[in-house]
């Protein structure tokens, strides 16, 4: 079982490498990979696809700045965030906004695993931990 999972992981990694062009996930390439898997049905196809899905999801998250906000966010601010993150991570990053009233005020920007906390609730949480 462990060997099968390892093999599936290796194949998924190879398929993932084929799906990325210039640090960006290519929709066409992903479609091609899916068609290949459907046609050739490699061993442990489900495991391969699950591992592949995880890798693609992680990669897509790196190209998206998810902006959580408590109040209104101007489109110009979103554009500025996207530009700043693109510069910082040296890859094209798009910004998407999502209302999150629990933040009380301010913003929280998530790019991949990185979170930039600039909200009141985040500062209160940090304060409570430091007391």
């Amino acid at each position, binding site marked *: 079982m462990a060997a099968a999972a390892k093999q599936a*992981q290796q194949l998924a990694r190879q398929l993932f490498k084929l799906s990325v062009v210039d640090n960006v996930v290519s929709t066409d390439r992903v479609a091609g990979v899916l068609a290949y898997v459907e046609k050739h049905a490699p061993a442990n196809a489900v495991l391969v696809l699950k*591992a592949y899905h*995880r890798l693609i999801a992680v990669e897509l998250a790196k190209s998206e700045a998810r902006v959580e906000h408590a109040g209104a966010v101007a489109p110009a601010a979103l554009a500025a965030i996207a530009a700043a993150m693109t510069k910082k991570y040296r890859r094209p990053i798009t910004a998407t906004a999502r209302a999150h009233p629990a933040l009380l005020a301010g*913003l929280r*920007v*998530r790019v*991949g*695993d*990185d*979170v*930039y*906390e*600039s909200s009141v609730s*985040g500062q209160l949480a*940090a304060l409570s*931990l430091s007391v």
Partner: protein
Amino acid sequence: MSTVLDQIEQQIAKLSTKAVKKNTGNIRTIADGVAKIDGLSDVMYNEMVAFPGGAIGIALNLEETEVGCVILGDVSKLKEGDEVTTTGKLLSVPVGKALLGRVVDALGNAVDGKGPIDAKETYPVERIAPGIMARKSVNQPLFTGIMAIDSMIPIGRGQRELIIGDRGTGKTTIAIDTIINQAKINKVGLASGDAKFRPVYSIYVAIGQKSSNIVRTVAALEAAGALEYTIIVAATAADNPANQYIAPYSGAAMGEWFMENGMDALIVYDDLSKHAVAYRQISLILKRPSGREAYPGDVFYLHSRLLERAARLDGKGSLTALPIIETLAGDVSAYIPTNVISITDGQIFLETDLFNQGIRPAVSVGLSVSRVGSSAQIKATKQVGGKLKGELAQFRELAAFAQFGSDLDAKTKAQLERGARIVELFKQPAFSPAAIELQVSILFAMQKGFFDPIDAKKVVAAAANMKNFFTTRKDALLTEIRNKAALDKDLEAKLQAACDEWKSGYTA
């Protein structure tokens, strides 16, 4: 003036609203105190990670798709999907004299109900051991108060001496006796006002023990007045394996503070067998490859990096380690015992047979050794006890041969008689360590044959009587021995006279 203040205020305002970057992940699975986490792409090995609800973890397995973390603290409220963040810090524990007299958990939090600990400093739990150049050779004695050990298997400050034996052979008792003895020496030394006196502070790390045992140990130390010089780090059997794994490193960090600040400290790891078992459990859950006895491949490094932290530093203090290992049916050739034997600078081997025969402490003289040797002994002990180990070894050999026949020459008989008396003389009740000057006096009396006319079965009572005689009536002589630390002709004459006086008044 106000412009300058405005500028500073603006700077503060700018800093306080600056976004804080965190690296995050999500719990994928959690079981047995170990969490597998998706994300945490920037996490470092051994980095502290924060879980919701204040629990903290340590990143131990960095894999391509996930991070394996051990969780220290309450895991009952954690669930799949919870967000975990990196802290950028190594796990640290409070250190300093504020911890003396307290019982703390593996993270240095007080668990004795005496309120919070006012520690000013923290030390990282994992630290690289001092290098070669920073060290100094071990040549200052650390008295255990146990006559058999101080005279034949001397321990020096900065040494690592293993206490090994089956369950119920008195391993913990030897460690507690040593801690009590340090407290007694500290009290006498500090009261004397000697500027050169260096007290020894103790740290007792209980790993995987029953809570009731720890309570008993605390009570014994408190009753002996030793708790005020001792820190107890408790990771009980009820604690999760991660806490048991980290506890000895936390204790070592607390001990290092004393060492780094020019003081001497003693640390007891009770015991490293349970520590290895806790680490094996964590490693198996983390799916690390297992080797002999299902222990992971780095189980040697687990203990070597811990014990290497005990040292005597040049120009600073020392940290002496007394690790304890529990054997099964006296098998010292098992994996963990052989590992720790090879790491330490000697071992005190306790035998079940001796214990059952009533020879307590049940120290096996043949199998016990101190690689530091007599360099960690005072001259007085060498003078009166230098040949003891050889005499006892000879006695054991002769006693084995004597079982086959009854016709023995006078010399052999005398050796057997002397050996039997030495064995009796070394019997010592638990939690009553003897001061080194008293040990020297008793051994002097034995060497001069004062116990020879006494029946072997009555030697224990006679020795107790002699101890009482010296402590109550020859205090000045004991103080002189303690201060001189060597027996000159004048002292020998005084000791001889005192022993004669005792003999004239003693009736068996």
